[in-house]
């Protein structure tokens, strides 16, 4: 049942992404509206899929790659919808929905069976740790999208070629403001995510920190964002530098999330997928 709802969610996201891409080409408001409705409907279905899977599995469904990818996508869309309330930036839609889709399609292909939970994962800390970590990551995903938009827009203004893209993108001021906002929300979330993970590690493995690759890379990611936040507040790293840092930071997140699982081995590798 949850898989069926999940597939329907993917279909809605595909629809939304197509509409959003058409919107960004044709700039017809109606398309953006339809796309937004599809994304919102997709998000609701996605949430339903989670609840269903939770009920079927009996634990928070974030324990294999299919589940984590799907949860990550869910968090990204959720964060976008929350931001949309405040900023109403429609052109962010195509970026976000594409990103969500990039996560959802492998999630759709990967094995979806509910397997018995590894003993180490049977803990209340599992949902807490994962939810904070992923919410933080999702906020940074948004900053990643606006970072890309910033770099494009900045290049156009700087090089004095105000082209078709420039007209479709928000102003540098707004993009930079989102970058900062994302940092102020994302950084505490990421920090709590790491701390709760560390506490859980103490219960599960008897040590707060054991330098396994996932932990190391989380720390690297955290340091990147800490550096950006620090520089931003003291010397005024804003604009292009901040945007580029947001892009690099998110690439580090993606590597921590996927690269470590696929390329390196460690405690965090719980399932083959």
């Amino acid at each position: 049942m949850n898989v069926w709802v999940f597939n329907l969610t993917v279909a809605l996201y595909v629809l939304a992404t197509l509409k959003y891409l058409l919107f960004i080409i044709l700039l017809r408001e109606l398309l953006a509206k339809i796309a937004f409705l599809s994304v919102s409907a997709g998000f609701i279905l996605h949430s339903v899929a989670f609840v269903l899977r939770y009920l079927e599995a009996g634990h928070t469904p974030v324990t294999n790659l299919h589940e984590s990818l799907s949860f990550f996508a869910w968090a990204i869309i959720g964060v976008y919808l929350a931001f949309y309330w405040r900023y109403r930036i429609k052109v962010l839609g195509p970026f976000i929905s594409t990103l969500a889709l990039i996560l959802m399609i492998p999630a759709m292909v990967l094995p979806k069976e509910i397997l018995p939970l590894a003993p180490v994962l049977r803990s209340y800390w599992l949902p807490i740790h994962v939810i904070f970590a992923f919410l933080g990551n999702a906020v940074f995903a948004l900053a990643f999208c606006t970072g890309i938009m910033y770099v494009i827009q900045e290049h156009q203004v700087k090089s004095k070629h105000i082209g078709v893209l420039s007209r479709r993108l928000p102003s540098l001021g707004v993009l930079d403001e989102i970058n900062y906002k994302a940092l102020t929300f994302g950084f505490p979330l990421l920090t709590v995510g790491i701390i709760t993970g560390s506490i859980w590690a103490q219960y599960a493995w008897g040590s707060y920190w054991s330098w396994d690759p996932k932990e190391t890379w989380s720390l690297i990611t955290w340091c990147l964002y800490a550096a950006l936040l620090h520089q931003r507040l003291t010397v005024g790293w804003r604009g292009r530098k901040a945007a580029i840092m947001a892009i690099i930071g998110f690439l580090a997140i993606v590597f921590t999330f996927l690269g470590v699982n696929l390329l390196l081995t460690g405690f965090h590798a719980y399932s083959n997928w």
Partner: protein
Amino acid sequence: MDILVIGINHKTAPVELREKLSFLGEELGRSLSRLLEFPEFAENMILSTCNRVEIYATTRDVERGIVALKNFLAEYHGVSLEEFEKSLYVHLGRTAIRHIFRVASSLDSMVVGEPQILGQIKEAHNIAAYHNASGIILNKLLHRAFHVAKRVRTETKIGDSAVSISYAAVELAKKIFGALEDKAVMLLGAGEMAELAAKHLITAGAKRVVVASRTYQRAVNLAMIFNGEAIEFDGFHEQLEGVDIVISSTGAPHYILRPEDVLGVIKARKYKPMFFIDIAVPRDIDPEVNGIENVYLYDIDDLQEVVDTNRERREREARRAEEIVEEEVLKFYHWHKSLDVVPTVVSLKEKLEEIRRRELDKALSSFSRITEKERRSLESLTSAIIKKILHDPVTVLKSSDLNMDTHVYVDAVRKLFRLEGEEGGGAKRQGGDDGD
């Protein structure tokens, strides 16, 4: 009843001539009333702006109408016809409809896509309506024109991008800062274009204005206009830190701002972005400044390039707008045509005949037994009734064809009998430019 437009505009006549033929203020109402007395015209309206003088009228006799309007223009303004006849354009029927739709949509304007003309037409129509000079056809025509203008504005990007240097500067400022609400502007030197740009920036929300000029008094005067503050020219470097937008147009023979100056300022600002607009020739600001992080420098050529791209864009959008106009011209033309007596009489007869047929068939089918003869007499009875009913209205319609008020009758008949051709049908559409 034909629609007729006669007029001159910025493309056909120089400003001296346009001035001579213009109708100003009070005159407008008087001339409308004068035109109403002409037997040639049923309705009229005058549009008089600095770029065009046009008279719209509906007439039964086009040839005489044109002559009457030409003579009216000449006599009213005391100008000989020869003086302006070459500059006059005359549009009839479908071409006239297209003309007003294009004018209202700003496709015929000096700067394509500038929206002022729509307001001017609305005003002209209000005055005409107030003096009872416009009637059913012109009212409908104008409402459609407003509707077309609205469609063009929302469905194309014709008015979206700035086509003057000063607006382009504002557009860029918005691209850099987003909202301009809390932004401060510095004017270095004074010049018409710099003042204009500053004015637009303030309209767009910019808060504080600082003016520096080589002659202090000039700075004071200028600062007064913008409700800003004047500073000594030599001290402007110290004030740079507090401003976001700098408009420079001094007559200095060399650069007054060098990269090292700006670098110091931007650091002190913690890299809060700055936008330099250099409209001086020779330039005031070293182009290298544009290379500094979070600093954007546009000189007059850069701005001109933005304007040129925007103009091209408007022209591309204008082509799409022409398609919308064409579509709407066709719609209006059909409605207008339907106001002719003959097609109305035909469709009225058809409608009644259809009702007769339907009711008769119903009645006949309920009879169990009926002879051919009885059936035929029923046929002729019902036909006769229809004919009798139709006789008077058709006679009145046809005789009204010779009068000025035909279209009132025709329109009434079409509405009362809900005849096809009135698009969408019914009185609801009559009032609105609110669309399909």
